[in-house]
């Protein structure tokens, strides 16, 4: 048996579980809010075309519309100004092998429960590595905060001075990208950066550093509490949109049974 048939057997036997890390595309799901002068992220919308009726007797279907960055979504390097000249930086150009691979999960849920502006720092990464080993090259790293369990206004957590939600410091992202060579970084919040990420140097460090180095982002993930710290496999192929800067997508993880 080769590796793939072994895996297929494990899947059919239930030895490998499939975990859905995706929020439902829902018209009322929060999107990132920018100052009103800027262009805004389109919400998910669905218009009925027909429903087995005079508009189409035997079939039901909808027209849907949204932003590339609505709901659980993928960020390609060209999404950010730092990645505008990265080779193969649009979703249709990214090699398909980037969309499946190993994933490390750094659990920040306790800290995020205490502090809305909780930061993922190099120290936290060092602690995680002390327990789980060095983060291997070319892996996905996900920051678990349990933020996906928040509902309504608590999710964006918008105040007079902007949103407050956890995220990585510039140093943490630099460590992950430049020293560990990760493939991408994912969060449960509305962006890969902290709610107050505009006040770091550089502003929005996760976007700036990840995409400037040709790495990918995933956000609005859910179910990270079902993943082990290491040993799971992430599957996250975005839609193949010509020159697309990102895409809503279904994110799945393959997890050895009982590993979480």
């Amino acid at each position, binding site marked *: 048996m080769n590796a793939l048939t072994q895996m297929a057997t494990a899947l059919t036997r239930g030895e490998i579980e499939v975990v859905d890390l995706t929020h439902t595309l829902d*018209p*009322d799901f*929060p999107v990132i809010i920018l100052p*009103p002068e800027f262009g*805004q992220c389109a919400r998910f*919308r669905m*218009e009925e075309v027909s429903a087995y009726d005079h508009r189409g007797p035997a079939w039901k279907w909808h027209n849907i519309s949204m932003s590339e960055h609505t709901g659980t979504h993928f960020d390609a390097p060209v999404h950010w100004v730092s990645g505008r000249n990265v080779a193969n930086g649009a979703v249709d150009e990214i090699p398909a092998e980037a969309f499946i691979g190993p994933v490390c999960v750094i659990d920040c849920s306790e800290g995020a429960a205490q502090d809305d502006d909780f930061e993922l720092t190099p120290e936290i990464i060092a602690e995680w590595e002390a327990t789980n080993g060095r983060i291997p090259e070319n892996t996905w790293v996900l920051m678990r905060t349990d933020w996906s369990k928040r509902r*309504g*206004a608590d999710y*964006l957590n918008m105040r007079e001075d902007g949103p407050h939600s956890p995220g990585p410091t510039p140093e943490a992202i630099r460590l992950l990208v430049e020293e560990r060579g990760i493939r991408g970084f994912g969060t449960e919040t509305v962006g890969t950066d902290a709610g107050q990420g505009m006040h770091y140097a550089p502003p929005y460090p996760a976007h700036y550093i990840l995409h400037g180095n040709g790495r990918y982002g995933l956000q609005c993930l859910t179910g990270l509490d079902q993943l082990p710290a290491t040993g799971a496999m992430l599957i996250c192929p975005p839609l193949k949109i010509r020159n697309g800067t990102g895409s809503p997508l279904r994110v799945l993880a393959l997890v050895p049974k009982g590993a979480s």
Partner: protein
Amino acid sequence: MTDPLARPPKKNPQKVQTVPVLPPSFRSRAAMGLTAAAAEGRFKLQHCAECGTVQYPPRDACVSCLGLELLWKDTDPVGELIADTIVHTSPNLYFRRQAPWRCGTVRLSAGPSIFCHVHGDCVKGSEVRLLSRLDRAGQGVLIAIPKETTPNMADDPELRELGADPKHRRVLITDGRQPGAPALAKALLDAGAMTVFVGEGETWRPYPERSALEKMDGVNLMPLDLTDTSSVVELAGEIGGKVDILINNARFMRPGGVLARGDTAFARDEMEVNYLGLMRLAQAFGPGMKARGADGINNAAAWVNILSINAIANDPAYGSFNASQAAALSLAQSLRAELRPGGVKVMTVFCGPTDDDWYQDVPPPKLLPGAIARSVVQGLRDGVEDVLCGDVAKDYAERWRQDPRVLERELAGDVG
């Protein structure tokens, strides 16, 4: 005095819905001038250009000199009620249902004697004032009211039937996020509205108006996002059967004309809210309102759209937004015709620049929320189709009447 209108009882769920029937609606082309005047709440009659004789009923040639040029002009509405009678039965279904119905003859100081509807407080032989109003069929009619205000005057059944008074009615304001929403809700409650439903979208995004709305007795905040069909349909499913007055105050706007923008993103948002939002609302709430046009004291009575006066003539500083307003105005005309069989009026409140963030670099006069709220309530009481709110709207409308093309150039800044 008029007996104060009692709060309507809860509906008997075993009774069949009263079907809307309309008063006679056929008019000559000449008589449509009366309807046009009533739509603006103005008392106008035909005046002969040659001899000045005031005409009634509307006609094609002067009753005095056979002159053919009869101009609709604002006319002194004061006269004497010289005769009155009460109709107790009628072969017409509408008046049969409304009976008893008082009517009478008023001799106007301006000349003609006019047979018209008569308010219960008018005393035969005394001075009265004529109002031009739209009846349930949407046609211009005249009603005599006492010259001086009497207690509970608006509760007179004939006068109420010719308007859409918010008293005892249930109102839906579609967008609680608009800066003017609290003032509007308060004005309607002060006017006696039984309930004010206020729609709010995206509750995951806080907004300052919410705390004011929450504190008001009689306000019910309901989820509603005009850009989301499922949300509109859901709310109509819940409260569509008890919305007597719908006030669409939703507005998405950004400054800029065609060339300033360079893309269609904001234009799309403007159309999604201002035009398609109106259409979604109309498709969800319209049929229910149309069916409830004769549903007792709190029947469905009016649909109100709050639009920019630039719906009639584009100011290129807000060119894209104004195009969406023109689209909404045109759609409202269609809706007006489609709701007419139900006896539901469609009213537009035309506003000049509002005193908010998006008109911050526009010099005054600008409209405060209270002014718009007062216009809405007054327009409903009068049952008109067009309300010009504030001096800018009145001025633009007047200039538009004089010459639309000149106004276009003036708004573009071509006239010094």
